[in-house]
């Protein structure tokens, strides 16, 4: 019996890796964690700091300026006039409430639609069906926002497909207005609500559902006591999308909302037609305040603890 360990034909030992420049710098980085961290974070921190936070701060500052009514120039004198006007003006109050109502309605509808779809995708469907559904959910995102909004305009019109579908049963299309706005926005933001809930459900092991059933829990009980508490943070993540996107929207309401205005429309007209950037900035602060309020509320439920 032979005792050689090298396979026949191999005579040369495996060479050591060559000392290239890339190799040397990698070796330097491997022993200098601070430099590594600096290289990793400089660019994103610059982006976050300059482009993001400064822009937001400028908005806040602009809201405290005013416009000279003769020249139309922005006067850089501090004043709370815009803020006071936005908070006390009945037009702004009405539009704020309307916008808030639309955003809430859209969020409730989207969660109600997303939960069963996401549950089916994550827990019932075969892996193949799961992939197909995932693509189906993502597919609308490939199309332009405007095209989708105009598609709904066509669907909801008096001669549209919805009227044709429901009129035999005595129904009618809601036409253009608030209902149409809610329907269209719900459609637009649905993927953003399905995806986080789906991801959350994926992380819930099947054995937990089986364990609940095994211990006597019927499906409703299992959903309330096991599934819902575990995916609550994912639902909240989804609602943040649908809620904040609805709050800031003004195009959909222009296309299918009839004469109705949302906060975004007021911002748009004040920047454009009225040439009053400070007032526009003050209006834009409303959704920011609302979102902060919403996040504070969500925080109290503990949903963000494990984020």
């Amino acid at each position, binding site marked *: 019996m032979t005792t050689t360990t090298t396979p026949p034909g191999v005579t040369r030992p495996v060479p050591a890796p060559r000392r290239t420049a890339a190799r040397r710098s990698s070796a330097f980085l491997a022993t200098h964690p601070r430099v590594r961290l600096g290289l990793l974070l400089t660019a994103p921190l610059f982006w976050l700091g300059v482009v993001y936070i400064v822009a937001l701060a400028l908005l806040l500052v602009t809201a405290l300026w005013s416009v000279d009514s003769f020249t139309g120039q922005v006067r850089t004198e501090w004043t709370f006039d815009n803020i006071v006007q936005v908070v006390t003006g009945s037009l702004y109050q009405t539009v704020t409430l309307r916008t808030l109502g639309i955003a809430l309605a859209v969020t409730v509808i989207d969660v109600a639609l997303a939960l069963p779809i996401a549950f089916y995708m994550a827990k019932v469907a075969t892996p193949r069906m799961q992939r197909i559904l995932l693509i189906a959910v993502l597919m609308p995102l490939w199309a332009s926002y405007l095209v989708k909004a105009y598609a709904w305009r066509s669907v909801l019109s008096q001669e549209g497909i919805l009227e044709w579908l429901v009129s035999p049963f005595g129904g009618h299309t809601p036409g253009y207005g608030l209902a149409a706005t809610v329907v269209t926005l719900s459609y637009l933001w649905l993927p953003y609500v399905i995806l986080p809930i789906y991801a959350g459900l994926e992380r819930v*092991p099947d054995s937990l559902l*089986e*364990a*609940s059933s*095994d211990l*006597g829990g*019927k499906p409703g009980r299992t959903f309330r006591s096991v599934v819902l508490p575990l995916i609550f943070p994912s639902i909240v993540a989804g609602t943040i999308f649908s809620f904040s996107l609805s709050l800031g929207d003004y195009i959909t309401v222009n296309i299918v909302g009839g004469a109705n205005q949302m906060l975004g429309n007021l911002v748009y007209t004040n920047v454009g037609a009225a040439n009053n950037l400070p007032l526009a900035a003050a209006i834009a602060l409303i959704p920011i305040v609302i979102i902060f309020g919403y996040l504070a509320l969500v925080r109290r439920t503990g949903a963000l603890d494990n984020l």
Partner: protein
Amino acid sequence: MSVIPAIRVTGLTKQFGSTTAVDHVDLEIAAGEFFSMLGPSGSGKTTVLRLIAGFEQPTGGTVELFGQDVTGKAPFDRDVNTVFQDYALFPHMSVLDNVAYGLRVRGVPRTERRDRAMRALAAVRLDQFAGRKPSQLSGGQRQRVALARATVVEPKVLLLDEPLGALDLKLREQMQVELKQIQRDLGITFIFVTHDQEEALTMSDRIAVFHDGRIEQLGTPRDLYERPASRFVADFVGTSNLFDADLSESLIGRRGEHSIRPEKLTVSAEPPSGAQMRSASGSLVESIYVGSGIRQVIDLDAGPRVTVLERNDRSRIADQERGGRVHVSWHEDDVVALIPPGA
């Protein structure tokens, strides 16, 4: 009239697509029995367990629980409970809430379910951890919480799906004893799925060895170990020196396939003398010290390589030289005839 078995499974079949996971399994498990289903992964043992629990619906056959057909029933309508392989504790609930879950579902009042859950936790010596979350417990503690959660609702049958698989050896051995004690105290039927033959042998009243979706052999641990009915069982349950028909004829002097356990073989420098002893000569390939014994691998001159396990005994020659000439001997009674599958 015979006693009604805790579980009766008749012609149970489960197909996943084109693969048959469980193939016409018939099984009767008596009340109060510690019954193990042993087999390699993919042998169908876990699927049988899931069919009994109701997590899967069979393609064919029936499951009876104390004489009552439960085949079409949902898991929550079956009086069996499961200890899951990954424990499946609810991560958002405290240990106490986990254990009390089954009682809460059944509408037991708050104070009563608290008391009963605490008693179940005390039984597994975890009452001082009642307020913790499962993530704050060790693997062995989680395992015991899962056990308390499944037993607090007093099921007639407890199903255990490789419950000790994730534990380290020492803890596993300790839990084996504990499980056995709990089973005896509660007096309920345990159906225990495992791929660890040693675990099955030490704990069970009876064992079913699964292979390719069928039961290969069913019997007491002693039956399986001393009288394996097939090549597969002889090889899977413990280690065996297998001899095919030709070798059996020349070495053992019998027709058909045979096996001999390593500990039934003896190694000596000289051929042994004595009635009913047979021996074969060979050369020592490897001598491995395993603490409690010495495992020796020997190439017999007749062809096969055999393993001999000798007790770590002072009288033994500790180190035989590798390549040295030795004699392997055995008693006629220790030879086990294997029934070829399908015979």
